[in-house]
């Protein structure tokens, strides 16, 4: 004789299924939160990196002119501040690496001489914008101008110049250099036109 019954599922099983569902949603929510937190961290790291002071140098031209007892160097550069922090160029130096007779490397630094009267080196028309240090440079701004250097012939003497590079130091003491740069002999190019 058939015996019909209505079987109810074991309540423990349904509670377990519900708990599994809830935990799945929790997992989903925490995964999304984790993803958002990672994005937020990445954004704040990017902001922090943009706040770190640094300068960029773009070398436009570099010239050298030989005088009777010294050499004059002029570099037309654009200095950029790509960060969110206002900054200043505190010091500009020309780093010259030269070799002595026995192949000993010597590295000397010459400071920017804004008062050089041979400004004609930089601009034959006499309208050159020579940097006056310290030079304030706001966040996300660019400055353009000349750095001038004079080097007595007696300094290098019989040494052979190996490389030149320009080093800028900002307010925070952070240095940026151009790496080795090509320096052309100066000629009065304006007259050729």
């Amino acid at each position, binding site marked *: 004789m058939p015996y019909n019954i209505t079987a109810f599922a074991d309540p423990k099983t349904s509670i377990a299924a519900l708990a599994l569902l809830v935990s799945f949603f929790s997992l989903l929510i925490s995964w999304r939160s984790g993803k958002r937190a990672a994005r937020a961290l990445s954004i704040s790291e990017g902001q922090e990196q943009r706040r770190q002071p640094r300068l960029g140098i773009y070398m436009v031209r570099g010239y050298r002119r030989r005088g009777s007892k010294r050499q004059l160097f002029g570099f037309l550069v654009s200095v950029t501040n790509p960060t969110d922090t206002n900054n200043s160029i505190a010091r500009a130096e020309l780093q010259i690496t030269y070799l*002595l007779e026995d192949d*000993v*490397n010597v590295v*000397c*630094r010459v400071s920017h001489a804004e008062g050089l009267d041979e400004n004609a080196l930089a601009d034959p028309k006499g309208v050159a914008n020579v940097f006056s240090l310290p030079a304030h440079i706001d966040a996300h701004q660019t400055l353009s101008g000349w750095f001038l250097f004079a080097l*007595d012939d007696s*300094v290098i*003497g019989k*040494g052979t110049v190996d490389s030149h590079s320009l080093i800028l130091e900002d307010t925070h003491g952070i240095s940026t250099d151009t790496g080795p740069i090509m320096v052309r002999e100066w000629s009065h190019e304006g007259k050729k036109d």
Partner: protein
Amino acid sequence: MKAKKTEILLRHPREATPVPIVADAALSTVGLHGGKMLPVLLLDTSNRPDVAEFIRVHESLGPGDVEFQWGKIEGHEGTVALFLKFIRPIELFLVLEFDIVRQGILVDQALTGQGIYIARANGAGDRLKYDIDRPKVIVEVADTGFRQTWDELLKKHLVKHFRQDGLGRHESRRAARSLIQELRKIGSLRIRDTHD
């Protein structure tokens, strides 16, 4: 002050060897460094052409910047060393090593005067008096707290030296104290500016 070990990055292995001090003297100049008496070190630059070059060009390029550190070279007993890192006008690293008993007066005078002169020696028997106008570089050595350590080191090594010479413990201490007092009496002399 507690000593700590540190490593220094060198550009060339020759920079690790202390530059030998051939001779020394003391010099006080009116109007320079407050007229304080500073030790003059004549250096043997035969293995350090970069140091010779540095001294040569310093007069043309003018004053620069230097970082310094008093310390001790590992494995060198009875000495102290002055590590000098010149940043401008010429990049250079050099080590000067002083025997505490024999050359302690130089260290003491450098700490008192807060500076030293370095110059190039012309050969082994050279003395400052043979060419007093030779190019010299004045290196400012400000007090960084080494004085207290130095006082203890100097006293300890002088006492040990006198003990080895046969003096008793008490006498050695007294002799060391007396010697240090005399050294400092001489070292504190300075030529003051005259104002007419």
